[in-house]
């Protein structure tokens, strides 16, 4: 699964948390957004190593958490990636790997577009 090209961000505007105005959640959403580069790096690292088990777990955890932080679209993309990895056979074909890579691209793009505060949107 080595690749010379890393998955890139999806273009367009930033993704705002559904809980952006919730005082109980402001700190947590900011923390989640601040840590997003580490999560993205971990996903890419798992992809580079071909560690599908780790990749599935990372996607699974994002799926479970993103809704709670107010980013259901990211959670849905993570859920699709998790399902695809779970459906991979012992020897994945080139088309399957390409499909997986596209899903990672989409997920990473969404992850990179999350915003902690509406004021960050520009």
């Amino acid at each position, binding site marked *: 699964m080595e690749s010379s090209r890393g998955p890139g961000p999806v273009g367009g505007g930033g993704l705002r948390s559904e809980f952006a105005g919730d005082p*109980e*959640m402001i*700190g*947590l959403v900011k*923390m*989640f957004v601040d*840590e997003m580069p*580490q*999560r993205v790096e*971990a996903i890419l*690292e*798992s992809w580079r190593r071909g*560690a599908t088990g*780790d990749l599935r*777990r*990372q996607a*699974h*955890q994002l*799926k*479970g*958490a*993103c*809704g*709670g*932080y107010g980013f*259901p679209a990211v*959670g849905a993309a993570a*859920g699709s990636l*998790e399902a695809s990895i779970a459906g991979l056979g012992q020897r994945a074909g080139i088309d399957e790997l390409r499909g997986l890579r596209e899903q990672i691209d989409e997920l990473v793009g969404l992850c990179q577009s999350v915003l902690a505060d509406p004021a960050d949107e520009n």
Partner: protein
Amino acid sequence: MNLLGCVRVFWPIRLMKTDDGKYADGSRAERIAASMGGVVDSEGIRTVSSNETKPLVLLVDDSIDVHRLLSARLRHEQIRMTSLTKGSETLEAVKKEPPAVILLDLDMPDMDGFEVLRALKDDALTNNVPVIVLSGLTGSEDKVTAFELGATDYVTKPFDLAELRARLRAALRLDHLLKLLAERADVDGLTGLGNRAHFNKRWAEKVAESKRYSQPLSLAIVDIDFFKRVNDTYGHPAGDEVIQGVARLLQRECRSHDVPCRFGGEEFALIMPHTGPKDAAMVTDRMRQALAQVVWQRHPENPVNLSAGTVGCDASCGEVTPEEWLEQADRNLYAAKRGGRNKVVSTDLAPGTCQLAKAG
């Protein structure tokens, strides 16, 4: 790779470092604590105010995000919450301090939630704790498996917080009612002591403990002398007062680790852990003497006495079963009755020893 390492979060009680003594991210613990309204000290432990009477909820999930989110979202609930990120630590933690409810993730790397659930339900000490499964696994097969293994409820991630709160409250109500039922089933209504069912459970536990750890253990069976005469002469309310009075005396005279129970009728049992036969005979005889001194409001002219049979061992009691202990204590009680009443007859379970304690 776990991006967030293995930070163990205890909320609202304390927040700890990772197993290797470092935080996954140097500032993370402080930031988590700050988000919860506290500060981490130099040992990585944060203590905030908590009310020990609030029911304890244990969250087991390998995702630190779930810990953060639930800590924030359930902070206004009337609960204490403690958290683990490893399934394998659950059983030990539950035995140490049984929670009112467990929120359990299924997909965990070291020991999955199904295994944890199976272990909890296989253990008599933990099998009554309600478990709400919190899982990203949405297939009906997983839900059916969880319920068949004994889960109380199943909530899929990403969870709806209002729904989760409602389900948590329902599980807490269930736990409260189960405990109430269990307490009522084990308590004697007249005296407030443990009843026969309670005795049977505790006695089996104490015999097993004594055997396992070679600890001293003793048992006394106590019977009120001529109790029928009290009932027949002064009426049943007077008889009830005597039974309640003896129960109070047993509670007052025994040590904190002793277990007094009403065995039935006018008979009582006193389990004395960490107590050899000589001390048990002494303690029981002290109760006999104390009872003889009581002046009864309804019949001050007639004191009440007791007879008792005690049996005990100083270390290992070998393969003597709980029933055999009881039979020997009963034989001693009848020996005390035949010997004129108002006596304690004691047996040391060490072979060949049987002594008659002092008569009153």
